[in-house]
């Protein structure tokens, strides 16, 4: 049985349709990341699951119980969920301890031990319990928000871009702490994000959302390896798009004939090549260095092919490539191809 099951969800604000028939299943104990560009409706979906807003049509079932039944649906407090908002939404007038214990009732045995346990779970010093939210860093606030959401042992945890307000260094550390805590609790999680690294690293299942519906759902590796369309491929990471002609399983493009990752019918197409697939090699196509961005271990080169198309390739950081010099570039592995519209 799915811990979360969404069927045909529709929602519009005024005349703007935001969700147009979204459907999704999340298996118990797993993490699903909803990945999509901003404005695709992913946060709206999360709010409908949480019960902060009502869908126009469609159903949401949490742990087998339909929560959208009836005119108003089940109120959020009876949905058995945990929710972590973008900036944590800690109660500013309560201490960290009181924040985490907020959802516990008087009947909860040993609330104090539970709070200490939760602080440890999210890798926070128990001494922080006496502090107020404004005395914590952004990353610590997010961890407290997660501890608070987990306190009642909910059936489903909803994370709404929980790391987007943190800077890069904090983001990675907080992400690891949160992922570990979620795994330790074995709780079903729905994560909304527009950051592909976050989605791929945290989720068992990735659901790609564009224009109010899910366009592709599957294990993170599968979705990354075989994006359903060009937009999804771009969403999952940078790359170069080149026009190509497919004949008998080979794509002919400015980089020469390339093998396909997936069989495709013959005809006009676009191939999509990730930067790590491009290598400088004497056998490759000739290109001119137009820009070089030194990043330490690697250098990202912007290359221009004789036909004028440009692309980015990763090269060894120890070699200097002057602008304007000629290099040879080759492709490793099969490339993704999509029929030209």
């Amino acid at each position, binding site marked *: 049985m799915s811990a979360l099951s969404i069927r045909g969800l529709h929602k519009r604000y005024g005349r703007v349709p935001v969700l147009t028939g979204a459907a999704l299943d999340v298996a118990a104990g797993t993490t699903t990341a909803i990945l999509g560009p901003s404005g695709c409706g992913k946060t709206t979906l999360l709010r409908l699951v949480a019960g902060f807003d009502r869908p126009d049509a469609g159903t949401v079932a949490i742990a087998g119980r339909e929560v959208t039944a009836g005119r108003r649906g089940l109120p*959020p407090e009876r949905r058995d969920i945990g929710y972590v908002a973008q900036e944590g*939404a800690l109660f500013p007038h309560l201490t960290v301890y009181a924040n985490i214990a*907020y959802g516990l009732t008087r009947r909860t045995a040993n609330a104090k031990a539970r709070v200490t346990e939760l602080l440890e779970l999210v890798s926070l010093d128990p001494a922080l319990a006496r502090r107020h939210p404004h005395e914590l860093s952004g990353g610590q606030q997010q961890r407290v928000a997660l501890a608070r959401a987990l306190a*009642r042992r909910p059936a489903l945890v909803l994370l709404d871009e929980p790391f987007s307000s943190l800077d890069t260094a904090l983001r990675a550390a907080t992400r690891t702490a949160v992922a570990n805590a979620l795994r330790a609790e074995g709780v079903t999680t729905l994560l909304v994000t527009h950051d592909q690294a976050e989605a791929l690293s945290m989720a068992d299942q990735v659901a790609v959302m564009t224009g109010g519906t899910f366009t592709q759902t599957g294990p993170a590796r599968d979705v990354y390896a075989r994006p359903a369309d060009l937009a999804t491929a771009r969403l999952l990471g940078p790359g170069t798009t080149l026009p190509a002609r497919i004949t008998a399983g080979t794509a002919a493009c400015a980089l020469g004939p390339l093998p396909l990752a997936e069989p495709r019918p013959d005809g006009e197409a676009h191939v999509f090549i990730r930067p790590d697939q491009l290598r400088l090699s004497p056998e490759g196509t000739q290109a001119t260095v137009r820009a070089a961005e030194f990043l330490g271990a690697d250098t990202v080169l912007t290359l221009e092919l004789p036909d004028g198309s440009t692309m980015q390739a990763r090269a060894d950081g120890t070699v200097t490539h002057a602008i304007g010099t000629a290099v040879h570039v080759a492709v490793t592995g099969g490339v993704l191809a999509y029929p030209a519209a």
Partner: protein
Amino acid sequence: MVKPSPRLLALCVPVAVFAAIPLLYIAFYTAQVGWAGIRPLVFRPLIAELLGNTLALCATATAGCMVLGTALAWLVERTSLPGRSAWLALLSAPLTIPAFINSYAWITVRPGLHGLAGSTLVATLSYYPFVLLPVAAAVRGLDPAAEESARSLGSGPVAVFARVALPRLRPALLGGALLVALHLLAEYGAIEQLRYPTFATAIIAQYQSTFASTAANVLAAVLVLCCLAFVTLEVLVRGRARTARLGAGAPRPAVRASLGPWTGPVLLALLGLLGLAIGVPAYSVGHWLTFTTADAWAPGVLLPTLGSTARLGALAAAVAVVAGFPLAWLAVRHRGGLTTVLERSTYLASAVPGVVVGLALVSAAIRYTRPLYQTTALAVAAYVMLFLPRAMVSLRSAIGQAPPALDEASRALGRTALDTFRRVTLPLTAPGILAAAALVFLAVSTELTATLLLAPTGTRTLATEFWSATSEIDYPRAAPYAVGLILLSVPAAYLLLRQSTKGTS
């Protein structure tokens, strides 16, 4: 944004309509009397004289406040003036002295003072903080980088002030000026003592001779038109560039202009100003206190007055907060066309002077709800109409302290809507609610004109007792009430000062 529920609207619409009663009544009454009835009452020399007097005072005193307020704001915020935060508090201190006590004080030291000159002097000294506070806050919020860029582009200091700083201070400056002008339209006590006839004084005089007559109501209608004209004028002059808010990230503090050898003269000038604005009232009240007889201090005289003042203030504060909370909630949480109209309607109604609200309620009560006439309920209704916006300002910022994300977090943690309100919303908004109640309480305690018109016969408040004593030229008997009124105004002035220094610091 979630649509407001019908239940919330059901709480808000009646409050907005209630606040608009005086305006609706005046409009309805004027329509009923008809053009033929109005014309002889409006187009007569008296009205022309009143209009001339009122506009002249508004022009001179508002201009005075604008110049004085802006100059002081710049001195305090952008120069090397020693002890600047203390100066801002000191220069805001005239807020603690009701204008009618200020004129009482000035008549004491200069018995011949009267007319436009006297009124301008007293009004400017009483009301310039209304310009000083918002402009000082705006100056603090100015990003000095814009001015420095202008300097680097070749403008001199004066040109920079005129071309870069002033346009961005305009919303604050105009807002303050509008507040001063509306106060001047409404001011009765101070101007009556200085024997300068304006619409407000004429309406009361008319009321005292012919009660709630057509003549009084027509005067009120003309006064309402002046209010609407001022409000419209402010909107037009302010233009579209309304928000002076900066992006994220605090601007670097500005480099202060060094006063150098001017420090001494500037300090002397500021002390002189304080002498005029606070020194004169302090001296005069002290002077009359020495003549105050013991029976004026008798607890049997003072305590009932204090008691009834506090009772009216507390009632009005409670009603204003309860009535204003849903409206403020609507305005913060459900922004939209309808909610803006509802919220604005309360502001517009309160721009109408107390004397008009009082007169409208008396006239309406006599015609339609006779049993309410001469009751505390009617007086409280008038106070709520007049001071609801003061409560709204605090309530709105209070509700802003409890963003919807916190409600949602609480609901997701298993708390019902009611429980969430009690455990999250209320604790977070409580300080703002108390500030709102305090502001209304203090405004009611020092209110004069609506109280004179509406309070049940025999009700004695500090303001009415002060007024009746000065009307009988019994200045020593008035002095203890003046002290009480000033003491009651101190906390309100402090709250206003804090409100204006909080947002940008």
